[in-house]
């Protein structure tokens, strides 16, 4: 009896030790402070889910908070609170790229690593920025999707936001470049871009104009969340077999995705974004990366993320390099008939 008991104990001990050995994870003992733009926002709650998932895998603990009024001084209060607690890293989605710089520089001086995600902090206030997708990746994803929907041939138009909207213009220029340069799109005839000014009625009317002008129109790309529902509604009302894709919220488009107007629409996944930001923060704290251009880090299920020089639109509307570095997930989330319902409450 005694021997059996000691055997059981020994076995348990061995298992216990191996379990403990196996559980030594890169984030053990680390504390990360997560700051987002505003509390009570479903988008950021989803991002926190990503941090939770990473915390389970990496072993770190984290706190999260955002000001209830979405102010930058509220974010400063939260960051100073984290500095006092001696966190190892701060992951922040900034309400104002510049307002947090001095406070975050204090954090860096105290040895805290700073990752900005979703909305970047100015270069001098961060070690690394983690963003969902580069302009080029967004453009190519939309083009690829619409090409698939229309079988790679036919007329294609774009309904954009304002004619001066810098992000949209950048995406459109990448779409136009690919249409010209990539032989996969040789049979697609691009008829041009109209501007709905992010207003529902104007977007609807411009789409109607397009449909009347090009009776054979096959596909529309609408790279703006504000315009997309109007475009899809117009196509549905006119009863045309035109396919629509774009950057959209799930809640806006569920109706049109189910009606077959859209095969798929896209937006980044805030859960994956938080997840990747957590991996970046742990890698920075452990010294696996320093946040310099040319380095890379692994995020399970997302891939190897390369760190590159970040770019920003200059006054001429062109991409110009900045002092900071950035890594893109370059992975957009597709809303399809199967997936859209799961996202309706979040995006």
């Amino acid at each position, binding site marked *: 009896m005694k021997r059996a008991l000691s055997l059981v104990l020994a076995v348990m001990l061995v298992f216990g030790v191996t379990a403990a050995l196996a559980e030594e994870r890169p984030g053990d003992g680390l*504390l990360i402070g997560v700051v987002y733009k505003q*509390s*009570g926002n479903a988008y950021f709650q989803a991002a926190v889910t990503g941090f939770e998932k990473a915390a389970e895998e990496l072993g770190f603990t984290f*706190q999260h*908070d*955002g*000001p*209830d*009024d979405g*102010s*930058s*001084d*509220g974010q*400063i*209060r*939260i960051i*100073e*609170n984290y500095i*006092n*607690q*001696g*966190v190892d890293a701060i992951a922040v989605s900034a309400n*104002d790229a*510049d*307002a*947090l*710089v*001095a*406070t975050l520089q204090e954090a860096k001086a105290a040895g805290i690593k700073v990752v900005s995600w979703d909305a970047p902090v*100015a270069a001098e206030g961060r070690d690394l920025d983690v963003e969902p997708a580069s302009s080029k990746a967004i453009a190519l994803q939309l083009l690829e999707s619409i090409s698939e929907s229309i079988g790679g041939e036919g007329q294609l138009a774009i309904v954009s936001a304002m004619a001066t909207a810098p992000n949209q213009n950048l995406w459109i220029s990448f779409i136009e470049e690919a249409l010209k340069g990539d032989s996969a799109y040789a049979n697609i005839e691009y008829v041009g871009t109209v501007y709905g000014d992010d207003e529902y009625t104007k977007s609807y009317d411009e789409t109607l104009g397009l449909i009347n002008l090009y009776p054979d129109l096959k596909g529309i790309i609408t790279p703006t969340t504000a315009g997309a529902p109007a475009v899809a509604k117009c196509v549905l009302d006119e009863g045309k077999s035109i396919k629509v894709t774009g950057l959209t919220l799930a809640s806006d488009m569920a109706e049109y995705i189910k009606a077959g107007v859209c095969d798929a629409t896209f937006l980044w996944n805030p859960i994956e974004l938080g997840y990747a930001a957590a991996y970046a923060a742990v890698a920075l704290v452990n010294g696996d990366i320093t946040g310099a251009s040319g380095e890379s880090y692994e995020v399970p299920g997302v891939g190897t993320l390369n760190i590159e020089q970040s770019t920003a639109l200059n006054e001429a509307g062109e991409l110009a390099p900045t002092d900071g570095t950035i890594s893109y997930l370059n992975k957009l989330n597709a809303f399809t008939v199967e997936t859209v319902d799961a996202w309706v409450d979040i995006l």
Partner: protein
Amino acid sequence: MMKRLARSAGGLLRWETMLIAALVVMCAVFDRQDAARQVAGLAKKDVFNPAVVIKGLRPYMLYSFMTLGIMLILAMGDIDISTGASAALSVAALGVVYQALTGAGIPGGLSLALSLAVCLLTGWLCGAVNGWLVTRFKELFAMIITLATQLFYRGVAYLLLGGKTLTFKNDAAFDLLKRLYNTVQIGDVSLPVMLIAFLAAAACYAVWVHGTAGGRRVFALGTNPKATLYSGIRADRVKFRLFALCGLTGAVTGVFFVGATSSSIRADAMMGYEMYAIAAAVLGGFSTSGGRGSVPGVVLSLVIFGVMKIGLGTLYGFADSMVNLSVGVILIVSTLLPNLLTAAGDALRLRKRRAQANVSSRALTSGSI
């Protein structure tokens, strides 16, 4: 003058003693929680000690200057809820004027001095407009007038900035403002520049409000406006000046705010700051019905709010929004407590008097037999 100071201090001693007691109890509770967390391995380091708290008070000192302005409005029995907006407008003026001046080739230092003057003047003017409206249209509540000007000032700030954020990056002159958010190292303690400036300002206010005839007029105005008027005090003039001064303290808060937010200027800055300031003034002993209050009490209440937010945030993991809730609770308790105490005191006295009356009437009846 010293005697007067001592006398007025004596009358308010009770409330301030209570504030100090509350602060001490709070610190003791937080300190125990801090130690418990360290023992349990929940905390990475000692997060609640004088050095951390003094430095950590910084973000909660931003509205302190505004509180000095607003408390005197309360002392007169009025209210001003436009100060956050007028501060935002002052700061917008600061940014726009600085941009225009440096754009015109004027050296940075001079531009900064001029635009700071414009900023303070704008704050004073905003307050003066409030003061003029309040004294001119006595039939309207100050609350409604300053609600209107609050919306108006905020709107003008949006117009001035065109809805954008104005920043001056790597601008040597403008970066001087960032120093306002710095700390001065004294031994182990990093003393915030803002705290020193506020304590100096509060000391001046204390001498003025509690030690001079001018200061007592303010309280007199709040206690009995008619009697004050008949005693030869130009009530409207005092009121106008105090409203203008309140606007000015808002602009000062604005300048420090720009320093704190890395010289980033936005029209939605300092939203709701006037409410924090009113809360601090009320906890400090200023009554919204006027005539009562003390400057040391306000300083104490600002510290209490700061320490409480730091403690709840770092030791109990309260979210920023939850901390505001607890401020609300404290405010309710602190305003109700004196009333409840007075009511209880009155009831006790009444009972005593009744008991005495009973005894004496019984004595009378027994005597007649």
